[in-house]
């Protein structure tokens, strides 16, 4: 009896323990089956961080807060008015201090909050807006299809005077014009934007070629147009350089779009090639002593490091890499001067998702150079190119070991795209942890992760 009583005394805590364990298991199973999401208090905290950042002394922090205001949960009308006030209605001297640093962030946030109101406001200040904003940046934010809605003599004349089939052609011209006004993106990108080009209308492109030639547009652009339009290129007194990275990428893009069935490779002829790298490239990076003089032997030319690099990049950019391409790019990367390296890395970031590309991206995220890591982090967070190819766990490890606050902030922001997955609770914990960080920029990065949680765009590989 006494033993039974003792047994009963023991059984009660055991049962309690069992209940606790079972309920704990249930909760954890629930956590795995139902995607975790930021709580209301998380979102309120994140919004408070963004609001604080809006008045920060450091303009860089303020710029980030302005960029994120479009995502915050505050009253959209208030947020819109605050952003609009930064521009001071385009009156000189009325704009907020530091506007040159964050005007495009502010515009993008305004557009995210209320697209139609933003465009109406820009239309109201037509001339001032077109004068004080870079047109390429402006239309990248509000859409290139809005070009004709602005009252501008050149574009109004081009686009407004034509209806029907020619409208597309004129829009293409306007796009070409815009690409060349600003710090021009490659023509390859232009092809992607231009409506109607995918329909295969060589006559239009040839016509466009003539139009642009009359206006003295650069030969490279003309050549692309001509080739794209199926015309015969006549080169007089122009060094037709094959193997430039632009040309290879353009051809790689055509492969991606389905215009050609092989990644471009021009047959090497007996023509002597003049590839003279900059003095800095030769002295500082020892590119190749042999490239200091004109190379007469086509075979010798064909094995130059930059050509191997370009060919590997072109295949990655085309979405058809070989097994060796990622290793080739990675191993050769540090031999090049930094501006070229930047170009190479951004090419990788714009490439479609392939094993080689993912592998390169992983390696680049751990690159010694902070500026390369910044590029990758910008891309992961959707700040630049907006693709996601690194797993949540990898990201969290990268965040914890990262010494640079800027990279850390961007990586935290990119955690948002892990929403609704198994990695979500871990990602949320990390975001909550970093929302209490002493550095304002890192706090903003974590807040961005919470505010942009579970955005539909982006593919996350795990």
């Amino acid at each position: 009896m006494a033993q039974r009583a003792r047994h009963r005394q023991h059984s009660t805590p055991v049962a309690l323990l069992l209940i606790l364990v079972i309920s704990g298991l249930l909760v954890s199973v629930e956590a795995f089956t139902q995607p975790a999401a930021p709580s209301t208090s998380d979102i309120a905290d994140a919004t408070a961080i963004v609001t604080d950042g809006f008045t920060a002394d450091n303009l860089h922090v303020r710029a980030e807060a302005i960029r994120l205001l479009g995502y915050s949960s505050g009253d959209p009308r208030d947020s819109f008015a605050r952003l609009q006030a930064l521009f001071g209605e385009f009156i000189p001297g009325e704009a907020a201090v530091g506007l040159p640093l964050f005007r495009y962030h502010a515009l993008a946030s305004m557009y995210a909050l209320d697209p139609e109101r933003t465009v109406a406001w820009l239309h109201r200040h037509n001339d001032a807006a077109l004068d004080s904003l870079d047109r390429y940046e402006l239309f990248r934010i509000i859409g290139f299809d809005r070009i004709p809605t602005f009252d501008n003599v050149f574009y109004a004349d081009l686009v407004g005077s034509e209806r029907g089939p020619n409208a597309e052609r004129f829009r293409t011209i306007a796009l070409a014009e815009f690409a060349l006004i600003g710090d021009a993106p490659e023509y390859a990108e232009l092809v992607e934007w231009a409506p109607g080009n995918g329909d295969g209308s060589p006559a239009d492109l040839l016509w466009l070629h003539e139009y642009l030639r009359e206006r003295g547009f650069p030969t490279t652009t003309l050549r692309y147009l001509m080739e794209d339009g199926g015309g015969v290129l006549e080169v007089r007194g122009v060094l037709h350089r094959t193997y430039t990275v632009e040309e290879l990428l353009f051809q790689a893009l055509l492969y991606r779009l389905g215009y050609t069935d092989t990644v471009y490779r021009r047959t090497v002829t007996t023509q002597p090639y003049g590839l003279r790298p900059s003095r800095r490239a030769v002295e500082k990076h020892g590119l190749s002593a042999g490239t200091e003089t004109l190379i007469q032997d086509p075979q010798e030319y064909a094995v130059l490091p930059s050509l191997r690099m370009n060919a590997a990049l072109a295949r990655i950019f085309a979405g058809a890499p070989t097994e060796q391409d990622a290793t080739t790019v990675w191993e050769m990367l540090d031999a090049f001067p930094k501006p070229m390296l930047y170009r190479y890395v951004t090419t990788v970031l714009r490439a479609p998702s392939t094993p080689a590309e993912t592998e390169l991206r992983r390696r680049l995220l751990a690159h010694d150079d902070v500026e390369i890591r910044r590029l990758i982090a910008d891309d992961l967070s959707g700040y630049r190119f907006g693709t996601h190819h690194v797993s949540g766990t990898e990201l969290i490890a990268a965040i914890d070991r990262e010494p640079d606050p800027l990279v850390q902030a961007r990586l935290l922001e990119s955690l948002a795209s892990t929403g609704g997955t198994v990695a979500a609770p871990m990602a949320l914990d990390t975001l909550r942890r970093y929302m209490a960080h002493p550095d304002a920029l890192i706090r903003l990065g974590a807040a961005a992760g919470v505010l942009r949680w579970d955005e539909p765009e982006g593919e996350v590989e795990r």
Partner: protein
Amino acid sequence: MTGATTARGDRRARAARVSRMVVRMLAVVVALAGASVGAQTYSVDLSQMPSEAFRLFGDGYRVPLGPHVVHTTGLDRYRDADAMLELRMPRPQLPTVAYYRLVPQEPIGFPELSALRLVALTAVGRNERIGVGVIMTDATGATREFFMGYLDFEGPRSMHFYPPLGGADRFDPSAGLPFAQPRLDAIHFYLPENGFPLHDRSVVGVIELEVVGR
């Protein structure tokens, strides 16, 4: 007959329009002359200031926080300026959004001013698209940025900011922008967002700050 009358009427109307225009133009010229008579020019010779008079700060994220040394150099270094306050701004190698802030250590104020007509900064550019903004605060505590333009030229040049004459005073140039007793807070240098730097650092100079007003 009717046609001749109309033609004569047209001529009269045109003559009246021309005379009205001339009168208006004269009025503007007189107003401008009056304004320039009333206006005072206050200038600060930055080139003669010691390097300790200013500190140059980066944003701490994209570019180092600083402070960086500000040198005063002479004619022998740059042929195009007798002397200037030279600013050396370390730059990231890749295109990025960043800025520097040149802050006076002692207050630089213009206590006699009540309205601004013009802010001018003579600066030395090295043909990089670096934006320059002069930040000033008035007696009421209102802070404004007077964006001067870009240093996309080689050598010294005077960059001007004219406050807009808006509202009821639109055609009265003598009014100026109400901005009493302004003081210089800082001069901002916005590094170019696109394009690669030619060197690891950008070097620019400032020579003189001029404020015109009443």
